């Protein structure tokens, strides 16, 4: 494909050119001002309430013609006085100088100073309003100039109106849509390009970078950054020695070994899963299990660990099923099928929604997700109209929508690949089977009771017995009453048990060689999220009919569209000469063509988007402020040259992410201290640290906090991948009744053994309707919207959880036991605790204070007896039954707690250990542990 085709004139413009010949009278400046500025302004900002539908006109005032403007409104008539801006009330109104007439009334619709000036100039010049033909001529003359003082016109597939199509953009606003140009750098020997470009801006601002961070700070930073885990005291010591000898080599070696660690993938996959919105369930009313979603999670981890070229990573997730048809072996085929799990990550459930609407919900979600994730483009913004700010016509939205129009969601077969962890399958299956059998037995009991009564009824009425299915359509007179033989409570119980049968049947699929995937085909006639399968025969010759949906409404199909891509990027996708942004409309291959276009080296958004995300994860802030939105309204890059250099270099060297990590980590920018000598001045002049004059402190993420504690206490099970892990969850939440469509969801049950529970947090079972409260309170994002960057807001509930929760108490006791095991004297225990938690020895004052605290707490605990903790093996549930409006009860079994091995509890240890645990808990709560410097 050619890199950038000649920008061509769209057909609309050609017809306008023809029209313009008829008009000879030259236009005045004021007429041009009206046609190009004031007219469109009135249309965009005023006509909504002061034009169009006569029933909806506000204040009996219209802005759609000069006559109407001159006439004024119901209370004020001097709205427009040609030649006299001062008397024209419209200016008072748009300046918001009259409290009762602040126009337009929405804060975010207000006119800019510049726009108000246009209006004023036009009024002063006598407010001319040329006829349509003349306006056309002016627009044609203007559209011939691609670049003017007002900005550039970007060629697109065309908007709904010419005003939009020939809209101009400030070049700096549409930076992301312009080709990536790799800046030529005049690098000194051994100079890191990152440093070169960062110091360029620092020098311009006359700010010096912060001094380098010390070795202990650095190893903790790199260790958390690349693996999400803290360094051991032994690692710290070794690194400090190596760093003293040769700092560059030490960092390089540490980086290399961390990138080789399988825990690298676990840390970096987390960010990708945040963006993709990973969860093990589908959300919405049923929150059905997506039984094999965990395979996609592990695919992402493997891809990072294997340093899979990013372009390949993109293509597999968007079109893995299409690529799978060309796979060389079964294992590769599986991997590709698993990758398409990306297209299944959004919350979706067609329950109680009409089929077409359910499809639209899915397609809108997937289009937006692909746009945000890979192209840093929020697609929702041009679903109902041409984009308000970006060169993205609504036609392009529906072209991408059409690209997915034949994409159907289904669970599909895919063999397990050798890399997948299949531990715990047997045990897990047995556990689920037990719950399923219980539910089935309960159903049978109730159905038997009902049918016994039905038999009795038939006998009494001298009619032959029919089972429930067979008698369904019979008249009321010749069949027993519905729910006969069952009390109201039993009717409710039956509904609960029937739903449980579904839930556990579905859960069993976790252990099957299946994937949450997609296929190409016609829309199914019936959709139910609890079972979505590909039909045996798919009509491959079928082609979806796609239209622009006017205003985003299914009821208002507009112009027909074919599959295609974003035209404003100027990167062609197909071979259709008249329109190089269209994708061939065969049912199969649409997504692959789109994916190749996204992963094309010339696509200006793709590489910038991923490089920006990687930078953000290293520095806690991105180069371009909104990683999911590079549009006009997104924050502009602080270092555009650096972003482009990194993006170009990334593509040139095979889209390799590990290489990018190395380049960033080896820079002085990355290795500088968080402490800047001029901190006061910088906090004032550059509050967001846009200069990267020092390394920004960041709080550990929720997952890092839990994982780091497990590592420090020695409990962490470093096993990779596999079935969702079930750690202990706050018991009140685990047993919390939770409504789903017809019943209550079953209780959350933790795994019976500590090693199964103490897996890394990325493996924790992720239920859309039931977040883990520990992770959630520490700002783990929700799973509805893509999370481009974690929030770290400190709210009081965090303090409750960190001080008082069982999870924290258990960790502090296990930590204390570890200390007692490793060393006997209190002073040494304190020293070891500091080294494990902070990577440093305590100061003299800290030693003294902490020793006094532990001794004092030992006295306290000697006078207190903790209460034993129990785990219920069954619970009684209560639910309000719609039949009666009254609550009814039923028993739920919790077999996981029958042979449960709990963590060591306060009751299992003496006052001395509990006192030491108080110290451990304080360390885990401290600023120093919670932050990376």
């Amino acid at each position, binding site marked *: 494909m050619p890199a950038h085709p000649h920008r061509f004139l769209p057909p609309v413009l050609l017809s306008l050119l023809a029209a313009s010949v008829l008009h000879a009278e030259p236009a005045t400046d004021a007429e041009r001002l009206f046609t190009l500025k004031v007219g469109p302004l009135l249309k965009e900002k005023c006509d909504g309430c002061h034009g169009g539908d006569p029933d909806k006109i506000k204040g009996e005032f219209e802005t759609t013609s000069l006559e109407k403007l001159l006439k004024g409104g119901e209370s004020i008539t001097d709205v427009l006085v040609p030649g006299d801006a001062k008397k024209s009330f419209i200016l008072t109104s748009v300046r918001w100088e009259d409290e009762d007439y602040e126009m337009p009334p929405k*804060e975010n619709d207000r006119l800019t100073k510049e726009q108000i000036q246009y209006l004023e100039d036009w009024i002063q010049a006598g407010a001319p309003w040329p006829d349509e033909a003349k306006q056309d001529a002016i627009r044609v003359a203007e559209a011939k100039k691609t670049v003017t003082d007002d900005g550039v016109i970007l060629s697109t597939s065309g908007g709904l109106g010419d005003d939009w199509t020939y809209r101009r953009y400030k070049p700096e606003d549409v930076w992301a849509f312009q080709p990536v140009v790799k800046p030529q750098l005049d690098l000194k020997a051994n100079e890191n390009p990152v440093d070169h470009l960062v110091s360029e801006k620092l020098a311009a601002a006359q700010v010096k970078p912060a001094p380098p961070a010390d070795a202990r700070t650095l190893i903790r930073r790199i260790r958390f950054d690349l693996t999400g885990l803290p360094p051991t005291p032994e690692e710290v010591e070794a690194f400090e020695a190596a760093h003293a000898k040769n700092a560059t080599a030490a960092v390089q070696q540490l980086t290399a070994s961390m990138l080789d660690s399988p825990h690298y993938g676990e840390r970096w996959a987390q960010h990708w899963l945040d963006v993709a919105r990973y969860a093990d369930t589908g959300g919405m009313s049923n929150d059905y299990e997506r039984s094999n979603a965990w395979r996609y999670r592990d695919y992402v981890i493997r891809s990072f660990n294997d340093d899979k070229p990013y372009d390949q990573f993109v293509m597999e997730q968007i079109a893995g099923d299409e690529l799978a048809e060309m796979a060389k072996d079964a294992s590769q085929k599986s991997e590709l099928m698993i990758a398409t799990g990306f297209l299944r990550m959004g919350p979706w459930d067609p329950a109680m929604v009409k089929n077409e609407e359910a499809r639209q919900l899915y397609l809108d979600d997937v289009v937006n997700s692909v746009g945000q994730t890979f192209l840093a483009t929020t697609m929702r913004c041009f679903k109902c109209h041409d984009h308000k700010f970006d060169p993205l016509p609504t036609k392009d939205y529906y072209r991408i929508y059409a690209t997915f129009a034949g994409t159907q969601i289904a669970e599909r077969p895919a063999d397990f690949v050798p890399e997948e962890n299949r531990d715990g399958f047997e045990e897990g299956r047995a556990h689920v089977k037990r719950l399923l059998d219980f539910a089935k037995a309960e159903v049978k009991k109730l159905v038997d009771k009902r049918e016994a009564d039905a038999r009795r009824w038939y006998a009494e009425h001298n009619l032959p017995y029919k089972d429930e299915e067979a008698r369904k359509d019979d008249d009321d007179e010749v069949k027993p009453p519905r729910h006969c033989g069952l009390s109201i409570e039993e009717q409710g119980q039956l509904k609960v048990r029937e739903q449980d049968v579904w839930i556990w049947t579905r859960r069993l699929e976790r252990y099957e060689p299946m994937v949450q995937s997609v296929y190409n085909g016609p829309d199914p006639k019936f959709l139910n999220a609890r079972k979505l399968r590909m039909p045996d025969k798919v009509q491959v010759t079928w082609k979806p009919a796609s239209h622009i949906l006017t205003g985003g409404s299914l009821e208002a199909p507009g112009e027909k569209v074919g599959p295609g891509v974003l035209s404003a990027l100027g990167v062609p996708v197909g071979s259709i000469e008249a329109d190089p942004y269209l994708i061939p409309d065969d049912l199969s291959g649409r997504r692959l063509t789109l994916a190749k276009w996204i992963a094309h080296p010339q696509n200006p958004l793709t590489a910038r988007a991923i490089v920006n995300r990687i930078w953000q994860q290293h520095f806690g802030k991105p180069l371009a402020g909104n990683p999911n939105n590079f549009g006009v*309204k997104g924050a502009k890059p602080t270092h555009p040259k650096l972003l482009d250099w990194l993006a170009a270099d990334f593509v040139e060297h095979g889209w390799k992410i590990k290489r990018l990590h190395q380049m960033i980590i080896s820079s002085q920018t990355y290795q500088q201290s968080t402490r800047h000598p001029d901190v006061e001045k910088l906090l004032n002049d550059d509050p967001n640290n846009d200069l990267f004059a020092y390394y920004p402190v960041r709080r550990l993420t929720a997952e890092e906090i839990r994982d780091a504690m497990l590592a420090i206490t020695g409990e962490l099970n470093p096993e990779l991948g596999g079935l969702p892990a079930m750690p202990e969850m706050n018991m*009140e939440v685990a047993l919390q009744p939770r409504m789903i469509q017809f019943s209550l969801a079953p209780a959350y049950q933790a795994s019976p053994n500590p090693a199964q529970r103490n897996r890394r947090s990325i493996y924790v079972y992720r239920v859309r309707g039931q977040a883990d409260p520990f992770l959630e309170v520490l700002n783990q994002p929700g799973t509805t919207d893509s999370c481009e960057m974690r929030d770290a807001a400190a*709210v*009081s509930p965090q303090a409750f959880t960190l001080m008082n929760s069982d999870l924290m108490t258990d960790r502090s006791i296990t930590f204390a036991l570890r200390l007692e095991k490793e060393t006997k004297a209190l002073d040494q225990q304190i020293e070891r605790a500091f080294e494990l938690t902070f990577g440093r020895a305590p100061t003299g004052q800290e030693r003294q204070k902490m020793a006094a605290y532990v001794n004092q707490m030992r006295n306290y605990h000697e006078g207190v007896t903790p209460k034993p903790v129990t785990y219920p093996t069954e619970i009684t549930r209560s639910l309000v039954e719609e039949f009666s409006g*009254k609550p009814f009860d039923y028993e739920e079994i919790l077999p996981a707690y029958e042979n449960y091995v709990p963590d060591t509890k306060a009751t299992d240890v003496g006052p001395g250990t509990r006192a030491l645990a108080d110290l451990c808990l*304080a360390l885990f709560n*401290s600023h*120093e542990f919670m932050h990376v410097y």
Partner: protein
Amino acid sequence: MNHHFSSPTRRDFLYGLGASLGSVAFSDLVAKETAAPLAPKQPMLPAKAKNVIMLFMEGGPGHMDTFDPKPMLTKLHKKESKSTRGLETGFKFYVGSPFTFRKVGQNGIDMCDQWQHMADPVVADELCNYRGCMAESLNHPEALFHMNTGSRLGGDPGLGAWATYGLGTLNQNLPGYVVMTELALPQGGPGNWTNGFLPAYYQGTRLRPEGSPILDLPSQSFKDRNHQRQFIDQLAFLNGQHSARHPEHADLAARMESYELAYRMQMEVPEVMGIDSEPEYIKEMYGLDQKETAPFGRQCLMARRLVEKGTRFVQIFSGGWDSHDYLENGHTARIKSVDKPMAALIKDLKARGMLNDTLVIWCGEFGRTPDNNKRGGVYSLGRGHNADAMTMLLAGGGVKPGIVGATDEIGAKAVECAHPIRDFHVTLLHLLGLDDNKLTYYHAGRYKQLSQFGGQVIKELIA
């Protein structure tokens, strides 16, 4: 004009979305600064209401079975319906209400006989029955999200989040936005009271009906209050040493303050929840002495106590209103469970002079259809989901008592003063002195607002 409501830069910095780590919710320390997220703020417009208590009947009560009688339906009972609205397909038949109605109070509010306590003129004369709202969604979670967050898809901030974002809250030792549910969470769960894209300070705090009111609020059983104090002191020492080494990290003090606040909340929250201290007549009035009314009564009483202490927005969920069948049993029991407590709440607020600036709302996520389909082959007396009509009660907070709007003669559709949910939301904010068009937050490429794209104030509801 409140420009600070739409400026992303300064706020992003303060709220920790940029390089900073953010300051702390509910904090006295930061409350002294003007930029404190939950410090009380002046409303944009003259406010009629200061606080909101929203009673949410999850499942969708039947308007024709509560406050909007439809004699025509009684005539059509069990006759075939040809309506294509709603989700149900196949044979449908009209369902007359099992209840009889009468008019109560000086405004002639219609109530079915099941409402005993609400019919007391002292209460009824305060009520506005609004019959014009239309929900747009037919399924529970979408409609719940829509009514509670303005977005059918979920993920956007809850009503209380917008209210506290706009107004802050009056007591920094209590959450400003409190949600109480039954033991089971409503469909969509915490998505109904999330902070969404607003900073986490504005998240609804759920006071749990059983166990610990806020998760992990109490210390472990073997640690007493003095132990907790000493623990925080040790932490303050460690953190103090650390902060001294890191002057660049300005937000650390605020994080430490969140522990002190937590310590105070450990006292204050159980105090508010300690309704045992209320006089007997109050407990009796809210129905705490009866099994059917005690759970909802306790929550209504708690709502009054919270608002009295300065909480801005309280929401209570009552489930079980989704009567597809056995409507008579279902609604009778549900009405009984809320009738006495609701009436008590309004009387109590009035007696304390709090009703003037407390807006009480009673609603569900949608209304019910005039017809139903057969279930298991039999005429099941219940109703489907109706996105075109519903009923609401409003009281206090600047609302005009009386009946506003109307549905058609069978209750299929709102026909007078009909408004989508977003207009109701705009009106709610308006009563609080907030302008929906100006209460915006920049997120994902645009300035977002509760109504999504703007709406209009329903003037007929306002006194």
